[in-house]
């Protein structure tokens, strides 16, 4: 595996608030990095720094193969205007922005790519539907189609499963798995210790002014999750209990 991005001695934060300092790690091609942390620990800020929308306080970002022209990015859904009058296909086409620039429409090759991206994301049948008629899951699929169109070596996803149902989550996870197989690096901000983590090879835990990184199982230990303020001791004890309790489910 080769590194897409090397972070060296990185400190991140705002003028009077340091979120963490001296983080050195590599983001590998073909890997998926989960970024976890309590609210305000700097998950989204970390992603914005990777995008170049924010400078680190100190340290450096090295791109061994040069900074890619395109970095795939999906912001939290709350930052999106759903009433904007465009269709699903137009939203996906935005992913080819650099290809067609601001003057010309899509050429035939890009159009074919768009159709296959819509198909992969499972929104081809609603390609002509305006955004305001979509459910949360459908909108997220459409946004994934845009990321597919971006065809980027590094893909940053900020809480992509916050507002989607289980089947959509499974579908989107399969897309992430495929990106990984294609040798792209994926950085995935997740809010809770969910099943999503099964799909991630590495984790970065933020909180308590520290940043811990490594393979998922090495980073997300009960002691560390408590130490970095992600879980309380009783929550950690319950989550990492040896035998799960049997439960009775009331069916409706």
């Amino acid at each position, binding site marked *: 595996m080769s590194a897409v991005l090397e972070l060296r001695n990185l400190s991140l934060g705002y003028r009077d608030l340091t979120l963490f300092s001296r983080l050195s790690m590599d983001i590998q091609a073909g890997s998926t990095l989960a970024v976890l942390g309590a609210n305000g620990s700097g998950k989204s800020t970390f992603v914005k720094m990777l995008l*170049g*929308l924010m400078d680190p306080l100190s340290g450096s970002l090295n791109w061994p193969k040069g900074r890619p022209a395109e970095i795939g990015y999906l912001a939290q859904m709350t*930052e999106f205007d759903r009433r904007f*009058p*465009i269709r699903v296909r137009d939203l996906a086409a*935005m992913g080819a*922005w650099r290809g067609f620039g*601001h*003057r010309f429409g899509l050429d035939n090759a890009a159009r074919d790519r768009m159709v296959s991206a819509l198909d992969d994301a499972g929104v081809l049948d609603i390609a002509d539907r305006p955004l305001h008629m979509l459910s949360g899951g459908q909108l997220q699929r459409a946004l994934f189609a845009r990321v597919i169109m971006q065809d980027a070596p590094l893909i940053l996803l900020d809480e992509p499963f916050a507002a989607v149902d289980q089947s959509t989550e499974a579908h989107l996870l399969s897309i992430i798995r495929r990106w990984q197989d294609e040798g792209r690096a994926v950085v995935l901000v997740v809010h809770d210790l969910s099943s999503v983590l099964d799909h991630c090879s590495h984790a970065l835990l933020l909180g308590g002014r520290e940043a811990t990184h490594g393979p998922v199982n090495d980073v997300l230990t009960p002691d560390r999750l408590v130490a970095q303020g992600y879980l309380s001791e009783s929550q950690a004890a319950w989550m990492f209990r040896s035998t799960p309790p049997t439960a009775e489910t009331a069916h409706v």
Partner: protein
Amino acid sequence: MFDLFAEMWGFAFMRRAFVATTVLSASVAPVGAFLVLRRLSLAGEAMAHAITPGIVIGFVTAGLSVMSLLVGGLIAGVGVALLTAFLARRTILRSDASLASLYLIALAVGIFILSAAGSAVPLKSFLFGSILGIDDASMLLVGGVATVTLVAFAFLLRPLIVSTCDPIFFETQTRRPWLVDQGFMLLLVLNLLAAFKTLGTLMAVGLMILPATAARYWASTITAQLVLGFLFALASCWIGLTLSYLFPETPSGPAIVLVAGAFFLFSAIFGPLGFGRPLRKRSAAKDLPLTQIHQEESAK
């Protein structure tokens, strides 16, 4: 009906007014559409007031010429836009509050100077427009601004769409995202100045916002929004001018804006995205708030 048009067409000032507002409609429609889509409807209104002192000072010092209007208005408009951005970035105030503060000061300065100078131009036509005031130079101004606006939109349309729909994505895609914001504000000021003669400072934004909001009730695509917005603006101008001709005491600005308002009300009631149909179907239980689902479950 035909007699009326023949009669109106007989007057040179009416011919000018019809031609000027037709060109003006094509120019302000795309600006209005993006004012609405970018949630800047009220900022557009504020900006219309903000250019007043520039126009007034230009008028008092250089007379009522198109050049003084253009230069004064541009300086005031761009000045207020830049100061607003500066205040919003460097102080606690958000941009809406900064703009509101500045435009109120600017409007007060404008009206104060206009009154103090004992102007020869009646205040009413200054604020509400007059179809009598459209001379060759004003026609050139409207034509020039329309040309600049439409050419600029040919380049700005896609960046505007992307930056309006998903500003954060747009920021990751371009190095100078502010160029689009500032370019759009400049187009707004230019179009307000072009609309000033027929509509007056208080009504200029009306021809931008109302046709755009009316079109919003029908359009699900940008293209439809732009085309419909233009058609509503055009119809508002023609009918409004006719009203203003039939009732000579009414200034043209309010007449045009009232017609645009009628289109808006009609669209809100009958448009597929207005009261005509709920914004989104609420059939899927997963879209309901959890508490509501629980209530429904316990009610069974």
